[in-house]
């Protein structure tokens, strides 16, 4: 076996044989004797008072075992659901979230009762018979209105709808006063549904006799669920086992605890028999957390030679009806708006707003796609304003390879990078110069071709305990593992990360094979069961599994190897320091024939005659606390043609050159990029959650919510560079979110480039055919001339003059909540779109805020 080559090798996934046979075990595939089924009765209103619940008819229905409402759970579920301080410690208004509504519902889909019956169908039937009287209340849907004085509240007893308002930095005096040009834009991040193909599923078994609870659920981090749910149910961790077996995707939506995570085990306990709940897709879209849901007002100041000097960013984040457990993490967008560029100054402020929508929480990238998108849009808008090629602006401002470690404007230290290197390679692969020539020729024929560049950096690998413990309420994000070597030399590894598509069983086995020098096939990787492995695990999200979890495995394996070396020395009657490890053997220096195999040493570790001061056994636990985050990066380029007759976008070319440091399995890395890029393209072109002004979800099924199919995805051209991270011994970074982080900006930049002859400077997402068609016909109809933004009605927010007038002031730092609809927030001029309106361009009237909940219905 070519032991030394496992790291970096394209090893086919060992997960796949069971999955391609249909032999995977997802939670709904499991069953228990006498298992009952639970159905949740949900509020059809976004905001309402519950005046009466009549469950008599439901109780009498066939097969029904119980109907429970909030009062039934009072004795068995204590406290409110957790809210991590995350990046916003200074919370203002944080409503307590209980798993089930008692008197007031605050988003459509909130649980108000549960029905437990002998079969799925009986539970669903009986749920229809639960009669709930509601008194509808005003729904808070518009962010701008929500934070004005006198606004209705998302919950009746709140003082206001302001979840937080935090300014990270506010000084941009110098950079903006030195500026020759200031551009300004409002940029929307529509709400998205993470849409893991496996919805959430939970099965709970309570053993009254010994007080043990077992919970099977589809989760990205079973240990956290055990901590939160066990705490609320008063069951110690030693008696609360959480198992997440095969999990059909997460994308961030299976990190935080959900109401059902409490209600299902509580029902099992009340009922005294096992209970299972399987979410439908409709419930998933309605009641599983959404991602994004943000508006950014951004100003960028620079010189006409392309030097970027300063930026001001304000993020308005739609928290939904409650602050998601990790919802405030999305504010990290405000710590990275400068991306890989050198700015003198950046001011940023985040404002969390409560509304009557389902809460937002991390969705693939969580805050980082938003920061890349806003920065890369602003770079292009700035480049267009000064008439310089957007590639040249990027080159002029990049942090250079010899400037690492580089501390950004918010004190975060980038570990390593070669930003221009990935961009140059991407330009070469995309044939950038040639495309520009083709574009010029095509424009003469009236065709709309465009090319967009998006360079990205990412903070990931959460995380250093010093940074993450305060952000999670005291529990640092590190990672644990347990490496066990059995007497005959086979190896089991338990990791606190969780794999739901990422292929950890393969990647981690590659890592262990190289570290211990044992055959890959002799190593098994286990995860997802809190009864196995170390006391605590931290789960998988934030592209952390390899950089933190993999490092933990490496450390544990190294401990094992070191002990084995000492045992080998003893067996070989040599001094410790004279025995070396070489490809699965321990040999005496200078006497290569004096050697022991790893398996021989493993056997001896459980026998007799070990060194006097040594315990028996060959296993080790390690917790790895990284000294810093890791910072992958890359450059994506997209080329499009927009059909002026239909507004449809054809993706002509998509090139991605990414750098995640050392690669363990290139096949898996590419797969992660494919999926991530698809999700970013989908945000750019297709997906959006639409609620109406009453808070009714208009995109509640896969009929209405446009998930891309195989027909919509372009060919992808991928390449990579390798800049190892100095943060960890493996030199690895993260790649799970990279594709999503980079791709939306590449697509939108390409579309804006294509439509620039019509005077369009910015388009919000999704750039759907109807939205683009409106823009094209409106502009063509008005005969807007090429490139002269100043002549367009209304004055674009990208106008240098408009924004320069504000230079020196600190719009990003000053509270602007007192305005009325006649005095909109900075950047929202024109077209009373409110905070969810489209600021920088002239939107068609119906478009003034559909996707994110102005008082108009969306174009679903």
């Amino acid at each position, binding site marked *: 076996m070519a032991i030394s080559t496992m790291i970096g090798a394209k090893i086919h996934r060992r997960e796949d044989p069971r999955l*391609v046979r249909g032999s995977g075990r997802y939670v709904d595939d499991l069953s228990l004797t006498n298992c009952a089924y639970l159905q949740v009765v949900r509020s059809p209103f976004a905001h309402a008072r519950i005046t009466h619940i009549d469950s008599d008819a439901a109780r009498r229905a066939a097969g029904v075992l119980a109907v429970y409402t909030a009062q039934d759970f009072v004795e068995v579920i204590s406290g409110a659901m957790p809210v991590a301080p995350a990046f916003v410690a200074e919370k203002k208004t944080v409503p307590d979230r209980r798993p089930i509504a008692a008197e007031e519902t605050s988003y459509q889909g909130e649980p108000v009762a549960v029905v437990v019956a002998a079969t799925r169908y009986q539970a669903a039937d009986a749920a229809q018979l639960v009669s709930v009287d509601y008194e509808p209340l005003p729904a808070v849907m518009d962010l701008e209105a929500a934070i004005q004085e006198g606004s209705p509240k998302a919950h009746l007893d709140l003082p206001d709808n302001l979840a937080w308002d935090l300014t990270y930095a506010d000084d941009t005096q110098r950079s903006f006063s030195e500026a020759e040009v200031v551009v300004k834009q409002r940029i929307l991040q529509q709400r998205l549904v993470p849409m893991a193909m*496996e919805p959430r599923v939970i099965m709970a078994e309570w053993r009254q006799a010994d007080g043990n609870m077992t919970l099977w659920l589809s989760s990205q981090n079973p240990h956290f669920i055990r901590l939160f749910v066990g705490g609320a149910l008063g069951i110690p961790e030693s008696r609360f086992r959480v198992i997440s077996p095969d999990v059909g995707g997460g994308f961030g939506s299976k990190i935080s605890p959900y109401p059902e995570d409490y209600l299902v085990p509580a029902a099992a306990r009340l009922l005294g028999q096992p209970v299972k709940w399987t979410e439908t897709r409709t419930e998933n879209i309605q009641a599983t957390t959404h991602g994004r849901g943000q508006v950014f007002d951004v100003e960028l100041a620079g010189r006409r030679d392309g030097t970027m000097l300063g930026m001001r960013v304000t993020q308005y984040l739609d928290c939904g009806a409650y602050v998601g457990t990790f919802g405030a993490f999305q504010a990290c967008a405000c710590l990275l708006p400068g991306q890989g560029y050198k700015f003198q100054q950046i001011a940023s402020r985040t404002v969390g707003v409560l509304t009557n929508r389902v809460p937002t929480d991390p969705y693939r990238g969580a805050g980082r796609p938003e920061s890349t998108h806003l920065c890369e849009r602003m770079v292009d808008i700035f480049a267009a304003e000064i008439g310089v090629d957007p590639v040249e602006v990027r080159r002029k401002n990049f942090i250079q390879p010899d400037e690492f470690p580089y501390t950004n404007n918010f004190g975060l230290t980038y570990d390593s990078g070669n930003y221009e290197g990935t961009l140059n390679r991407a330009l070469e692969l995309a044939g950038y110069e040639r495309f520009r020539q083709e574009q010029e020729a095509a424009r003469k024929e009236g065709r709309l071709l465009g090319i967009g560049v998006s360079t990205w950096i990412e903070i990931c690998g959460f995380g250093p305990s010093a940074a993450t413990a305060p952000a999670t309420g005291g529990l640092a994000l590190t990672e644990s593992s347990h490496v066990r070597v059995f007497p005959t030399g086979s190896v089991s590894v338990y990791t606190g990360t969780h794999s739901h598509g990422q292929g950890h069983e393969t990647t981690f086995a590659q890592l262990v094979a190289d570290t211990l020098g044992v055959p890959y096939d002799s190593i098994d990787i286990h995860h997802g069961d809190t009864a196995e492995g170390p006391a605590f695990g931290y789960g998988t999200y934030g592209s952390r599994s390899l950089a933190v979890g993999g490092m933990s495995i490496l450390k544990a394996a190294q401990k094992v190897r070191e002990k084995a070396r000492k045992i080998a020395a003893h067996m070989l009657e040599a001094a410790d320091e004279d025995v070396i490890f070489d490809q699965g053997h321990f040999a005496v220096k200078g006497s290569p024939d004096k050697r022991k195999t790893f398996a021989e040493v493993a056997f001896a570790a459980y026998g007799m005659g070990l060194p006097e001061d040594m315990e028996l056994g060959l296993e080790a636990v390690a917790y790895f606390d990284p000294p810093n985050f890791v910072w992958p990066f890359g450059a994506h380029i997209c080329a499009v043609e927009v059909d002026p007759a239909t507004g449809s976008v054809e993706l002509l070319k998509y090139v991605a050159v990414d750098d995640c440091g050392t690669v363990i399995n290139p096949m898996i890395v590419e797969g992660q990029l494919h999926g991530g890029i698809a999700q970013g393209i989908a945000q750019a072109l297709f997906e959006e959650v639409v609620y109406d002004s009453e808070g009714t979800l208009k995109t509640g099924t896969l009929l209405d919510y446009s998930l891309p199919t195989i027909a919509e995805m372009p060919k992808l051209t991928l390449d990579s560079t390798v800049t190892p991270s100095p943060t960890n011994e493996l030199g690895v970074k993260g790649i799970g979110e990279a594709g999503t982080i980079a791709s939306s900006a590449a697509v939108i930049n390409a579309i804006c480039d294509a439509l620039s002859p019509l005077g369009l400077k910015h388009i919000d997402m999704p750039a759907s055919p109807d939205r683009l068609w409106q823009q094209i016909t409106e502009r063509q109809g008005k005969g807007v001339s090429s490139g002269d933004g100043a002549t367009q009605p209304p004055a674009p927010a990208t106008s240098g003059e408009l924004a320069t007038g504000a230079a020196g002031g600190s719009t990003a730092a000053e509270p602007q909540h007192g305005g009325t609809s006649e005095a909109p927030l900075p950047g929202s001029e024109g077209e009373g779109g409110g905070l969810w309106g489209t600021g920088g361009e002239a939107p068609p009237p119906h478009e003034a805020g559909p996707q994110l909940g102005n008082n108009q219905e969306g174009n679903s």
Partner: protein
Amino acid sequence: MKHRIAVTVNGKEREAEVEPRLLLVHFLRDNLGLTGTHIGCDTSQCGACTIHLDGKAVKSCTLFAVQAQGHELKTIEGLAAPDGELHPIQQAFWDEHGLQCGYCTPGFIMAAAYLLDQNPSPSEDDIKKGLEGNLCRCTGYVNIIKAVQTASRTMSGAAQAQPAASGA
């Protein structure tokens, strides 16, 4: 009022008494324990529940179990050879990294099997048309296309070498 149905599933005769409204996918999963067929939506969009009914790909969430009366069904569990050897499409999904979380995979493989049965050498556009009734959230579909192309080559190679075995 239950109805007695008799179906052939993966070559085995199965009989059961079912409610007329029982969805075929629930019959397969809950009554027969064939949990490889998954449920990813409730509006027939996602295709995770794709199986073969008399050799044709169908979404088993869109049929009642009683509609399968007298028909021959094949699920993902019935695709590999009796000796356990993977079907070339299963093998190709493995070889080409055509799956990540694996939840949509059985549906894709069954849809691809029908596609290749109908069109042993599909173009990329044919593959896209043939599989656009199935949704995947992990792969961006890139390696699913590759997997079907690889399977097509393997199967046509096998068919040429052994003409009797043709026909997917």
